[in-house]
């Protein structure tokens, strides 16, 4: 037996912390860390709903696998863009070069 609400609170707080990281950081790589936390909050929500529904379903595990893969692809492209932007104008996302 398990309660669903601690997992929901965990997912929500992760999304909130991630949003704070995206908004409050100026280093582009640290902004990406905030995005990763938001994606993980979504994953926790998927796994938690898969674990607590009454009908057994694998979607709660399949969709997080997809999200993790897409996050990996997103990070690769984003870091390439960060690298290019760093060469052009530095790492600060608020600076206009």
């Amino acid at each position: 037996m398990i309660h669903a609400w601690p997992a929901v609170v965990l997912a929500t707080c992760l999304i909130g912390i991630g949003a704070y990281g995206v908004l409050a950081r100026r280093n582009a790589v640290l902004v990406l860390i905030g995005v990763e936390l938001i994606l993980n909050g979504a994953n926790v929500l998927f796994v938690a709903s898969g674990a607590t529904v009454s009908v057994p379903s694998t979607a709660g595990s399949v969709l997080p696998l997809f999200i993790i893969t897409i996050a990996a692809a997103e990070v690769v492209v984003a870091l390439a863009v960060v690298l290019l932007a760093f060469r052009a104008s530095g790492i600060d996302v608020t600076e206009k070069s």
Partner: protein
Amino acid sequence: MTALDVALVGFGLLALAGALLAVTTRHIVHAALWLVVALGSLAGVYLVLGAEIVALVQLLVYVGAIVVLVLFALMVTRSPIGPSRDHATSPAHRGVAAVIAAGLVALLLAVLLPIAGSGAVTRQVTSNRALGADLFGTWAWPFELLSLLLLASLVAALAIARSRAVTGKEDA
């Protein structure tokens, strides 16, 4: 509170502490290392929730690959080691960010908590056999599309990183 609840709350608190430190620490490299703590304890959360494959993939892909990539990016962009205030935001900026984040949390909790309910339910453990059958049955086409996406992002990352930086000059 059942034993599973205690394990879930324990891993969850660890993950939240790691995440909070990852977005607030002034040591830039430490932020990536606190991210390892957060993502590793989230793998524990997935284990408690009965999703073994997701926990393993979380460790392999997130902790093993993405964090290493982030650390490489910090290295390549010459991030300072030790506390740094070069790119610190003003307290007002951080305050506004915290207010927006708290509003987001309140909004999501107001929507999601009534759905989650407060009673204890039986935990559904996802069997790896059923997961594999569904992944390569029902989800076969999205799975193939995913490999296409990975290939596209690989090529795009190479193309972007190898192109010359735009410096605003005509001959750049």
